[in-house]
């Protein structure tokens, strides 16, 4: 084929059209998420009304508790910190095409290791903190490996294996917390990490620490990896079309394993932030209650953030705000904390089916058309 001369005007028009499309696409997905959030909050309001709570007061409490003053905002960001990381675990994995539910277990292991290292490794603050994050991240990655191995060699579905490893991590951590890391002076928690390994509160009286910046840095790093490095390019192909990755001369298994490991690192760091980055405890409770279900909440965060690192930061702030505001909601309207889960769950279910909106639009359009064309419709019926 004869090379065609390059027409600069046509090139410019092409580039312009491209930008318009990009903006339109981004707006569309933001709108989709916004609608899902509204549905989630709406269902929450309905449930509260049905249970006899004042939902308006509850939501006012939620907003006040999340954004009412600087302490509220700091609490929101503190709650968002681990969620960014556990959200990245799921989001990064989803980009590479698998459903990693293992954040919870990897985070628990990371937290236990953070206690062990932070309580006994004496060093200057910057070094101690760095070592805790590194070792916890490593522990999370190690905990993630068997699931990757089982998937690669035995074809075990990752949802089943990661869930089982979550339970195994849970009981392992309980054992270690009670029998190895327990504080002789307190029955309800482990030993505290050494002062050198503690991150201080950035706003006095609130528990936000510089762990937030670690989480954001990890998010930006993963963003860079996925969209600006050849390895991330390969990971995304592995997620969408592994055969094409083989054709392109790379090994999908290698990409998937790398993703598993990096996700494990993020989960391990998430666990560490809850130990060395949450004043005033700096330890794990015996029932692991200061870890809660952060790993599972990360799934909600990732799905709402559309598995995009920057979207995950925003979604983590949203879910974090609900977590931080839930206490005020409970105080003001008497609504149990778990109310926010109903909202999360509904939002996710609403997000699962983006075609609902186009179908709904089509249905409404048809209704309108039928109403306008009523006489013709009636004729058809008569015949």
């Amino acid at each position: 084929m004869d090379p065609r001369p390059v027409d600069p005007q046509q090139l410019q028009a092409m580039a312009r059209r491209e930008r318009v499309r990009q903006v339109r696409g981004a707006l569309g997905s933001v709108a989709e998420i916004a609608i899902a959030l509204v549905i989630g909050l709406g269902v929450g309001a309905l449930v509260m009304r049905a249970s006899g709570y004042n939902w308006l007061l509850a939501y006012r409490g939620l907003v006040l508790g999340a954004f009412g003053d600087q302490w509220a905002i700091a609490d929101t960001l503190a709650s968002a910190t681990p969620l960014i990381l556990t959200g990245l675990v799921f989001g990064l994995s989803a980009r590479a095409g698998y459903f990693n539910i293992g954040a919870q277990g990897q985070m628990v292991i990371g937290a236990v290791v953070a206690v062990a290292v932070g309580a006994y490794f004496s060093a200057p603050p910057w070094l101690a903190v760095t070592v805790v994050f590194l070792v916890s991240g490593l522990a999370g990655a190690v905990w993630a490996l068997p699931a990757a191995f089982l998937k690669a060699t035995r074809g075990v579905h990752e949802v089943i294996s990661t869930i089982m490893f979550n339970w195994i991590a849970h009981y392992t951590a309980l054992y270690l917390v009670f029998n190895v890391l327990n504080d002789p002076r307190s029955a309800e928690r482990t030993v505290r990490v050494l002062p050198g390994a503690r991150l201080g509160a950035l706003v006095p009286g609130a528990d936000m620490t510089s762990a937030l910046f670690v989480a954001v840095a990890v998010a930006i790093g993963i963003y860079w990896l996925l969209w600006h490095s050849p390895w991330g390019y390969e990971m995304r192909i592995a997620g969408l079309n592994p055969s094409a990755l083989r054709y392109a001369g790379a090994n999908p298994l290698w990409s998937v394993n790398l993703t598993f490991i990096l996700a494990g690192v993020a989960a391990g760091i998430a666990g560490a932030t809850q130990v060395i980055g949450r004043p005033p405890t700096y330890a794990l409770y015996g029932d692991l209650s200061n870890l809660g279900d952060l790993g599972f909440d990360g799934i909600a965060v990732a799905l709402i953030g559309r598995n995009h690192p920057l979207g995950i930061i925003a979604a983590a702030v949203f879910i974090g705000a609900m977590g931080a505001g839930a206490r005020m909601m409970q105080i003001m309207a008497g609504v149990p904390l778990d109310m926010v889960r109903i909202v999360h769950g509904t939002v996710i279910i609403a997000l699962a089916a983006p075609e609902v909106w186009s179908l709904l639009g089509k249905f409404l359009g048809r209704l309108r058309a039928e109403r306008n064309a009523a006489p013709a419709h009636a004729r058809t019926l008569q015949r």
Partner: protein
Amino acid sequence: MLFASLVLGALHAMVPLTITATGEILSERAGVVNIGLEGILLISAWTAVIGAESGGPLVGLLAGVVTGAVLGLVHGIIAVYFRGDQTVSGVGLNILAMGVVAIGIVDRWGAAGFHRVERAFRVPSLSTPLGAMSPMVIVTILLAALTWYLLKYTNLGLKIQACGENPAAADAAGVRVERVRLFGAIYAGALTGLAGAYLSVDWLATITDGLPAGRGFIALATVVFSRLNPWLAVLGGLIFGFFDSLGLIASTSQELTRIIPYQFIQMMPYVVTLFVVAGVIGRFRSPAASGQPYRRE
């Protein structure tokens, strides 16, 4: 004595796993995968208690079945008609369930996190030579048999399998793929709802916001183990159930917990699940179109 309690324990622990897995087998054969079984177990366990306390154990079981069917219907509509992401929908269901039941327990009984079901509202046991056994054990076997017969010997079963293997072919042959798949999703939901009711108004006789304790996921592992054959789901349920009940029995034994910390005993069913899924069975081929929405064109 120990033997009898182990056998009965395994049978009782089998029931929720096998019933749930049996329903999911039919659903996956039709092409709908539901990862939200854990959530359905939880919510229907809660509604079953409400039902049982207002109308007796049978009403409780029925409430569980209806709740499960409705949740299965919702998941099915999202999966089949809205062509949504089945995994995402299932995850949403699991999270939603934790919230609904946590609040529901407070809302209903005023106590946070835990409510005990009195004997009068529980499913009455049968007396057997080994001891008291729940009639649900027999129901489980019957359901597995029924599902097996349905899949293997009825025209509906043929249609179900065609929808999972090659929905386009089924469609071209005049099978209403959407309806068959929706039926599968509702069937899985209803059976899972029955299993959830069994957890609360029969076997465990309590309702908490963590009642299923991963059994929804172990049921998914049982589905993998079964290679979508209901009889093997009974076997898988027995294997997993045996270790589940072994853990329950062992963790109450003073002598044993002194040697092995109870945390490791409680870990057992999960470790066994991993080993069985990885080692004994290896890879299997699920229906070609399972988990994928069907779109004409």
